[in-house]
């Protein structure tokens, strides 16, 4: 069924989320809050070197220490064949993942795990780590992406030959693959252009910086059954990876998703779980592991940094005739940067006849990247949307007008193939035009920037169950970890279908043994895909309830209608019966066919793409180079906001992360390839006093493929901020800042250089 044009009672309201009280009282159980009988503490020994051969690891002394129950290193993990699959966020090579969890012959970045211990206390575990004797042969390392591509760079993987080029290279290199996308004839396009603008841009790797460090508790029983409690965006993903990496069957692994303290894409692969299971297997005890904040920065994945060039050609009237982009993305120590989406998203906002994009996936001695909100899109869009601003200036056309003229619409064919359908980009740009922020005069000394962003959003596999309890209340169970309020949105959709208040439905996240497979929480898919499954399950329950009412009244099921949470006889011909509510029907469930429940699993297609536009005003302290965000408005097509507060929250949070990416977040390496700022003191995420209020404007162009019209919302808001801020700085100072972060020293230096 489709409810897009229905009048809704629950969807679109702002009830208190079902897990809210637990989270404001300290009751909520996160992974590090769990304990088990006889539990040990597991800790990881990490490489101090950026690149080294492991000559030997001697664990004798550590193993002999009193209170140590297991010591493991690479030899304790099965060799995994090179095999790629799509289990987490993007293609993953199982061998790479295994090597990332525990190094074998080489360590490839500072922080790379190479051994682990389980001990009765954390202090003993620390002491044991210090007793592990490792002999390294330190190798030359490379950090920067362009250095890593250069001939003669230290090669990380002797068996890696660039794919996507022909003929196949004869020598290994750090370039894992080359990706190209072409539409039309870009050379001919540039020949037609009256104006051509070009720019080179760089971005730094940034970490998702979820406040909760990775943590898990694993137990390997003598019969081979494994239990894992963990902080993850996908417990089925943890099960799959752990099974694959350790050679255990999935039926022997049960993963319980703990409350998750933020992920943003960073908890879509495994780090600790296979290690904890191995320690537990070896020690015969449960093992709890948690990363320190320093571990999180050094050993878990940020997103890529990049070096990029962009070239755009346009007619004098502003019509873009050609666009070209070269993207070099850092993948970290193993291939797998988001170069594909990077190549696809940069120009996806525009209707362009001739496009040529080339992308490189490049390894270097940094932690393996992980997904981070709209992976690849913020990077590529920073470059494109900065250059669009330059084009507008050069043409003397207003930044919004230039975008309106070239905006992608329904029917626009993208440069990577698909045709945009049911998109709301025009509606977003209209909302910019009519917004008081855009119309307000600029204050003295302030600058204003505009930038836009696109993300595909995804659907995929989800399972949901709806149970009517014996008293008529409702439980909804799904396989989607709740990272930012999805229990609320799922419960609301179920409540809407059942015709009951939101509070009548409790939503829970079921473990891997208690619900059908559900792909991880990411790509802004949960409200869309899991919401679709839950909606359909609720619809099945309604059909069942109607059948039960019909049975009770002894009338045909067609003569029963369901309204406001109750079964009514449909019209006077059906008979005169008092309506039956959920409680009444549940009470007699035993007589009408037994327990009332429905489970639906879907592979949801048709996730509607999301578009956003951000307006940002800044002031710049011209002596210190400090940028202050004075006003910020984020406008986005969300399809349909199921719970508007959490939709706004996604947009505000995404924008805040983008502001950090733009102004202050970066990885700082010393000459030895060691990270110098592995902590919240010097890895500078925005704090409350850095931020203005962020006005989130919800544009609702329904996605016809979702029962309520929802689109994913979590990814898009992190895309526009970097360029919006860069464009605002350009407006305030005349300076084009092509390198992130646009930190005070860079701005002061640029001001000085400009005189």
């Amino acid at each position, binding site marked *: 069924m489709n409810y897009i044009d229905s009048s809704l009672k629950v969807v679109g309201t702002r009830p208190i989320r079902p897990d809210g009280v637990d989270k404001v009282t300290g009751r909520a159980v996160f992974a590090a809050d769990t304990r088990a009988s006889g539990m040990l503490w597991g800790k990881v020994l990490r490489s101090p070197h950026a690149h080294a051969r492991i000559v030997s690891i001697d664990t004798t002394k550590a193993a002999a220490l009193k209170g140590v129950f297991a010591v493991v290193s690479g030899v304790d993990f099965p060799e995994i064949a090179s095999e790629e699959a799509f289990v987490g966020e993007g293609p993953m090579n199982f061998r790479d993942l295994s090597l990332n969890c525990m190094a074998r012959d080489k360590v490839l970045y500072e922080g790379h795990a190479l051994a682990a211990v389980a001990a009765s206390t954390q202090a003993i575990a620390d002491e044991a780590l210090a007793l592990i004797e490792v002999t390294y042969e330190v190798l030359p390392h490379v950090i920067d992406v362009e250095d890593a591509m250069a001939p003669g760079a230290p090669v990380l993987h002797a068996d890696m030959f660039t794919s996507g080029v022909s003929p196949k290279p004869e020598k290994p290199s750090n370039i894992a693959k080359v990706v190209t996308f072409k539409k039309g004839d870009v050379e001919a396009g540039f020949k037609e252009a009256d104006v051509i603008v070009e720019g080179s841009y760089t971005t730094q790797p940034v970490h998702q910086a979820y406040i909760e460090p990775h943590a898990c508790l694993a137990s390997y029983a003598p019969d081979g059954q494994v239990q894992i409690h963990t902080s993850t965006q996908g417990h089925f993903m943890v099960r799959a990876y752990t099974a694959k990496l350790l050679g255990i069957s999935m039926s022997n692994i049960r993963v319980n998703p703990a409350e998750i303290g933020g992920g943003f894409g960073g908890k879509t692969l495994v780090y600790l779980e296979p290690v904890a299971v191995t320690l537990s297997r070896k020690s015969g005890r449960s093992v709890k592991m948690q990363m320190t904040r320093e571990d999180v920065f050094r050993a878990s994945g940020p997103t890529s940094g990049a070096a990029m060039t962009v070239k755009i050609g346009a007619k004098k009237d502003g019509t873009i005739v050609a666009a070209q982009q070269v993207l070099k993305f850092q993948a970290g120590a193993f291939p797998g940067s988001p170069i594909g989406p990077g190549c696809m998203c940069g120009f996806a906002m525009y209707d362009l006849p001739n496009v040529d994009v080339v992308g490189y996936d490049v390894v270097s001695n940094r932690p393996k990247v992980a997904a981070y909100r709209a992976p690849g899109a913020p990077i590529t869009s920073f470059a494109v949307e900065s250059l669009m601003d330059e084009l507008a200036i050069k043409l003397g056309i207003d930044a919004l007008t230039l975008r309106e003229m070239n905006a992608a619409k329904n029917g626009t064919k993208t440069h990577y193939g698909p045709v945009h359908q049911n998109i709301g980009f025009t509606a977003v740009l209209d909302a910019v035009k009519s917004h008081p922020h855009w119309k307000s005069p600029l204050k003295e000394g302030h600058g204003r920037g505009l930038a836009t962003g696109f993300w595909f959003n995804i659907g995929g596999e989800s399972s949901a169950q709806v149970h009517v309890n014996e008293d008529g209340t409702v439980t909804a169970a799904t396989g989607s970890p709740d990272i930012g309020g999805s229990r609320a949105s799922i419960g609301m959709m179920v409540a809407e279908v059942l015709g009951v208040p939101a509070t009548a439905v409790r939503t829970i996240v079921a473990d891997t043994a208690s619900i059908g497979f559900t792909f991880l929480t990411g790509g802004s898919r949960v409200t869309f895909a899991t919401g679709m499954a839950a909606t359909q399950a609720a619809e099945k329950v309604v059909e069942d309830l109607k059948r039960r009412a019909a049975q009770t009244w002894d009338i045909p099921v067609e003569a029963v209608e369901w309204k406001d949470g109750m079964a009514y006889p449909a019209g006077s011909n059906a008979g005169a019966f008092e309506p039956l509510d959920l409680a009444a029907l549940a009470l007699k469930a035993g007589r009408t066919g037994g327990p009332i429940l429905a489970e639906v699993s879907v592979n949801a297609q048709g996730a509607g793409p999301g578009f956003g536009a951000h307006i940002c005003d800044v002031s710049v302290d011209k002596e210190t180079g400090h940028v202050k965000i004075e006003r910020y408005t984020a406008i986005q097509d969300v399809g349909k906001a199921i719970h508007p507060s959490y939709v706004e929250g996604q947009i505000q949070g995404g924008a805040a992360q983008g502001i950090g990416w733009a102004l*202050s977040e970066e990885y700082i390496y010393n000459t030895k390839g060691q990270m*110098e700022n592995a902590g919240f003191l010097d890895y*500078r995420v925005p704090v409350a*006093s850095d931020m203005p209020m962020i006005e989130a404007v919800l544009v609702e162009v329904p996605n016809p493929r979702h029962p309520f019209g929802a689109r994913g919302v979590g990814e898009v808001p992190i895309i526009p901020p970097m360029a919006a801020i860069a464009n605002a700085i350009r407006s305030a100072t005349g300076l084009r800042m092509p390198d992130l972060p646009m930190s005070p*020293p860079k701005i002061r230096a640029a001001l000085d250089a400009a005189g």
Partner: protein
Amino acid sequence: MTSLSYAAPTSVDDAVKLLAGSAGLAKVLSGGTDLLVQMRSGRLKPELIVDTKKIPGIIGIREENGAFIIGAGTPGAVVEAHAGLNAAWPGLVEALDLIGSTQVQGRCSLAGNLCNASPAADSVPALFAAGATAIIVGSKGRREVPVEQIPTGPGRTSLAKDEFILEFKLPVRPARSSDAYLRFIPRTEMDIAVVGCGISVTLDANGVCTAARVSLGAVAPTVLLVQEAADVLIGHTLDADTLAKLDAVAQAACKPITDKRGTIEYRTKIAGVLARRVAAIAFDRANGIKNGKAH
């Protein structure tokens, strides 16, 4: 495994004896906001922690013959709530207030900030500018030394193993005197100073500076007291020429390094910028013109 002991003596003598008698590394704990971080990271592995907070007088603020005396372990939040200090030494108060978060303010102390001996410590340039002295106690008794003689290098102080600071004494304030402190950080809070600057001045009735002390943080291995900068101010109002000279001498005094928090070039330029801005606030205050906090 080395075990870590803890003692919370209730007298100076007991504390000194504990420090003197420790075979391994002994650390004085007041607020612990640096010490605990260093212990956790493994940079420091003490065998004994001497918590001095139970020693009478080490926490609290009193006035003696017109001079303020601040207990060495007094938390930042207590100093900030003291009306008299806010009136006489607004710069020192705001400097202490800039250390860390509200949470850190509940614990951090002037002595800790000084003895951690970071060149970027926020309260230290303000203490230097104020001309504060420290009352140091140890097995050889009690001594009073200017604060600028305490830090000797990053993480190093002139205190003997069995010595610790009991309290700080601020000089009696002449009329038309005030101070100010600013630091530059990339964010608005929670960062370590890229550059810090504290200035204390006394003016005459015409607004001409008669006494000045200028201090810069994070531009050399220790916090600097910049006499040349004070000389530029003394005998002048804060006109454009004086400001330009102040900027130049502040920059000239810098001997910074390039690290994750700033470059040599940037730190040097910012030292000049801050010196001008801080002087303007201090002069305004001394002239009786109110200023808000230097956030």
